[in-house]
């Protein structure tokens, strides 16, 4: 059993060091007032960013073809979210692993999303009041076999490649799409009215604070990333470290974002997991600096401390002479 380390008191620790008067409360008070003045000036002169949220309504109005294309891919189960994997679905489209280590799979589905039902069929079923055509289209679609539904959706999704906007309606070349065009047309109308924003948020509860579904739906389209691209917020533009406008953003995330600029990591299918692992190791390294030989010795090798305690070392030299 090792002996208990010897104890020292501060008087002994600072033996030989000159002590000077010090007013801690005054220092804190001056710092607090000083920071307030700087912050007030910055707030008054530079304000802060507040670009309004993207909405599904604005998406449907400004880029209806992209909206319908996204909605059709959700119905067909071919969108990113529909195939994502945990925590949203049981798929594996966005599952990341490191060899046999698959924490995403191990954690399982906890924010369940059924893309065709949640993003299209359920909202439409809540909008059938007074719309017999929509009610009939929904019944036709729901009563059809899975094979038939897939045929309609595959054909419609292919036809959307040559879709055009005619009189505010998304039109595709003639084909056997069953009730799908009617469903998409009604969903577009619903979205343009703002109704879909609300319907994607609703659940069995009165109060709502979970925006998972509307955000996931938005993220599947091309409109939302396009807005981010214009604001220089995408991954190749240093991503979420930035923010809208000429503001500093989360500059403290620079190291996290840096790894996404490394081609070998950015192109990996498990890029996010790799970055998280690297940052976890680096964070642990920072935490354990006092115990890591070499890293803890750098301050002695590179004498920045000569600047920090310049006056103290001068005093030492003077007294030595």
């Amino acid at each position, binding site marked *: 059993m090792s002996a208990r380390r010897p*104890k020292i008191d501060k008087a002994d620790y600072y033996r030989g060091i000159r002590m000077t008067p010090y007013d801690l409360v005054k220092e804190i008070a001056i710092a607090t007032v000083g920071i307030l003045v700087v912050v007030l000036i910055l707030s008054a002169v530079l304000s802060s960013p507040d670009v309004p949220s993207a909405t599904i309504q604005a998406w449907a109005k400004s880029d209806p073809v992209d909206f319908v294309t996204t909605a059709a891919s959700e119905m067909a189960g071919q969108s990113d979210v529909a195939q994502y994997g945990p925590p949203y679905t049981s798929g594996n489209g966005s599952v990341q692993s490191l060899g046999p280590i698959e924490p995403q799979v191990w954690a399982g589905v906890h924010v369940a999303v059924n893309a065709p039902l949640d993003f299209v069929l359920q909202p439409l079923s809540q909008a059938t009041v007074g719309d017999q055509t929509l009610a009939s289209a929904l019944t036709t679609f729901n009563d059809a076999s899975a094979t038939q539904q897939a045929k309609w959706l595959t054909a419609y999704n292919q036809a959307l490649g040559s879709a055009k906007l005619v009189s505010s309606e998304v039109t595709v070349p003639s084909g056997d799409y069953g009730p799908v065009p009617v469903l998409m047309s009604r969903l577009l109308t619903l979205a343009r009215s703002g109704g879909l924003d609300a319907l994607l948020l609703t659940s069995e509860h009165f109060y709502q604070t979970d925006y998972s579904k509307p955000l996931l739906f938005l993220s599947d389209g091309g409109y939302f990333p396009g807005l981010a691209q214009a604001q220089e917020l995408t991954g190749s533009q240093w991503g979420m470290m930035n923010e809208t406008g000429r503001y500093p953003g989360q500059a403290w995330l620079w190291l996290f974002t840096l790894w996404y600029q490394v081609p070998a990591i950015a192109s990996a299918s498990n890029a996010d997991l790799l970055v998280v692992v690297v940052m976890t190791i680096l964070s642990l390294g920072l935490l354990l600096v006092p115990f890591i030989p070499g890293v803890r010795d750098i301050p002695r090798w590179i004498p920045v401390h000569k600047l920090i305690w310049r006056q103290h070392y001068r005093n030492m030299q003077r007294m030595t002479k």
Partner: protein
Amino acid sequence: MSELSGVGSSPGPVPPAPISPGSSATGTPAGRDKGWTAALRGRLDGRLPLEEVLPTRQPAFVGSWVYVFGVVTIAALVWVLVSGCVLAFMGSAWWHTSDLGHFFNSIHFWSVQMFFIFLVLHLWGQYWGAGWRDGRAKTWMVGVVLFLVSIVTAFTGYLIQQNFDSQWIAVNAKDAINATGLGGFFNVLNFGQMYGIHVMLFPIALTLLVVLHIVQVRSRGVVRPIGDPYIPDAGQSTSTGASR
């Protein structure tokens, strides 16, 4: 063991100050009180007497500019918390619809920026001064945890702005968090969850960590300059500095 090691050269914890003679409020001699309460009081009193919490004298080398960064970081945190309390009290939509609310949001925003600028400067200052020496490794470690918790706190703040930034950051961040398996439990798309965490849990954690960090710093005092080490068994001054 290197002089810069946080372990081997540690002189150990500062000893409890002798409990001053006299009687407690109950008339019992203070040194004879027993039980958990008395033990805690004795420990606190010994480790952190008021003289150490609010010192009126410090080593002369503390006059360096590098010691200002820690104090300014706390000053910025004060305004982060004050402006955050106003924003929380007025409701999450207030600052989008009111000029005064937007101004308070700006105060919150710039206080956070100031907080991080000086926190990072403080961190670098402590690194280049090897502030973990002489048994101060735990102080360094709590400081690093504070830094990491601050980053997550600011991140959740960005998520609850209810504007385009929060939407985009949430959608992008989800993939990294989902990849760790935590996405179902820390759902960045869930405004309610992030709001509670940002205005309640993390501020409490941050404040407690700051208090712990300050207590650590005050109970041990600042570390001696590199090259002027504490020598436990020396019979006289190790420094050529003037006497107290």
